[in-house]
């Protein structure tokens, strides 16, 4: 590991003030420290931001929640209001990693964790994300593509985003508050901060797979805001998160689905949100599937049609074709589970 300077920041302004070329923000460290040990990343300066951002969850008057970026995953998943109002979020976090890692990992760090693509993590392999311009080993004949993307990838990168939390936040229409360096310019408001809607924090790889998100250098996630739960307060929309993986616990998603279904008094779908994990460079909001279902009767045939409408755009790599059928079946099955 390359030597680095270390500083603890007491506020977002202090963190941003300490930021410079070659610096990295440190949350719980469960991904960053590992990547430094693997040689995938080698920051010259580490800025500990666990004391710079809130570690509290607060109820908002609107009925929504504000979640500090420093909240540990364990505390997020066990919070009474998260369990009661946003069960898909609690379930998503609980399916991620292990008890030890959830105790350390923060909300901000979870969202900004890097892909577990085997070629990104192996410094002996070409990887456009780790080393721009070096090529993408996932595109080579015989490559191990089992965990890679089927949607939205480019010839330069087929990595998937590994966060479960991000998939739930994408389905919940969360927004992420970001503190920005003063020179970031037009996108930041007068107080040098901005909001980023989910989906929208993570980007598709295109020709610049080294950029996981739309964040600019030095920008710091300070909190996540959840809108009030969908549906009437007496009968909130049903929601859940289901994750398929190679073993029953402590593994990344092959495919996951965060879904919410609200059926109106007329028996037709009034609100429907579907987000997929494990299939793309970003959490994948299934807008095409949602459009098919809105106003339709909630029935298996409609669910299957909606899933098909979304997966029509899938372009599996040689070796991960299985994910298309898995995603299609998982969407259908989860929506059946949510049908009143």
């Amino acid at each position, binding site marked *: *590991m390359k030597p680095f300077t270390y500083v603890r920041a007491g506020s977002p302004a202090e963190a941003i003030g300490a930021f410079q070329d070659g610096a990295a923000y440190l949350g719980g460290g*469960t991904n960053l420290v590992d990547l430094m040990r693997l040689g995938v990343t080698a920051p010259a300066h580490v800025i500990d931001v666990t004391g710079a951002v809130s570690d509290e969850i607060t109820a908002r008057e609107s009925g929504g929640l504000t979640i500090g970026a420093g909240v540990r995953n364990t505390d997020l998943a*066990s919070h009474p209001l998260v369990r009661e109002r946003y069960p898909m979020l609690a*379930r998503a976090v609980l*399916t991620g990693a*292990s*008890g030890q890692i959830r105790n*350390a990992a923060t909300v901000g760090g979870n969202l900004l964790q890097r892909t577990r693509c085997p070629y990104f993590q192996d410094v002996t392999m070409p990887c456009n994300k780790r080393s721009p311009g070096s090529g993408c080993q996932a595109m080579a004949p015989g490559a191990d593509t089992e965990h890679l993307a089927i949607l939205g990838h480019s010839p330069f990168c087929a990595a998937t985003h590994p966060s479960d939390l991000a998939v739930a936040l994408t389905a919940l229409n969360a927004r992420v508050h970001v503190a920005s360096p003063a020179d970031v310019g037009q996108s930041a408001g007068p107080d040098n901060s901005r909001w980023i809607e989910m989906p929208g924090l993570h980007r598709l790889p295109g020709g610049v797979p080294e950029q996981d998100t739309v964040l600019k250098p030095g920008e710091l996630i300070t909190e996540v805001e959840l809108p009030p739960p969908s549906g009437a307060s007496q009968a909130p929309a049903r929601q859940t998160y289901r994750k398929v993986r190679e073993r029953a*616990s402590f593994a990344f998603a092959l495919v996951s689905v965060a879904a919410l279904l609200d059926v109106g008094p007329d028996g037709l779908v009034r609100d429907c949100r579907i987000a997929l994990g494990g299939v793309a460079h970003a959490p994948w909001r299934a807008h095409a599937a949602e459009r098919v279902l809105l106003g339709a009767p909630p029935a298996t045939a409609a669910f299957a049609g909606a899933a098909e409408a979304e997966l029509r755009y899938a372009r599996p790599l040689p070796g991960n074709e299985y994910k298309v059928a898995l995603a299609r079946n998982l969407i259908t099955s989860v929506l059946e589970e949510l049908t009143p």
Partner: protein
Amino acid sequence: MDSAYATDITLTVNGEPRAVQVDNRMSVLDLLRERLGLTGPKKGCDHGQCGACTVIADGRRVNACLALAVAHDGASIQTIEGLGEPGDLHPLQRAFLRHDAFQCGYCTPGQLCSAVGMLTEPGPSAVTADLAADPPLTPGEIRERMSGNLCRCGAYVNIVAAIAAEVPKSATGAGT
């Protein structure tokens, strides 16, 4: 060492204050093992995947291999050495003996620290059906909550039995 890359820190280890200068790159695990002589926490994978390095930091079980020592300035760390000692074992250590919950023993310090931390962690798990209530710690719940600790000898069945025997009766769901 260039002082820009090292930091003076103070932490409490098994109840005793320790002041050390650490290379900023040093993990809590290497600090404990290489500098403080506490070799109970084991270096299995060094990537947070096996749990052999599990210690309790400020009351929570964590992977010591992924924790930077410099980021734990001021923290209170408990290792297996602080859990019990010969003649005065922690109840979970006695349960591990009684249930034959290990073979080679390499993962055992991490299993024990993880179990101690797990028993005080609130809320549901990934296998909990109803998120509203804190579920009883059934064997299925224990397996899920202990999934961050691997045992290559495969002593899982007895590890689960040992932990189940030490679950407070109020949390077993027995009689409910």
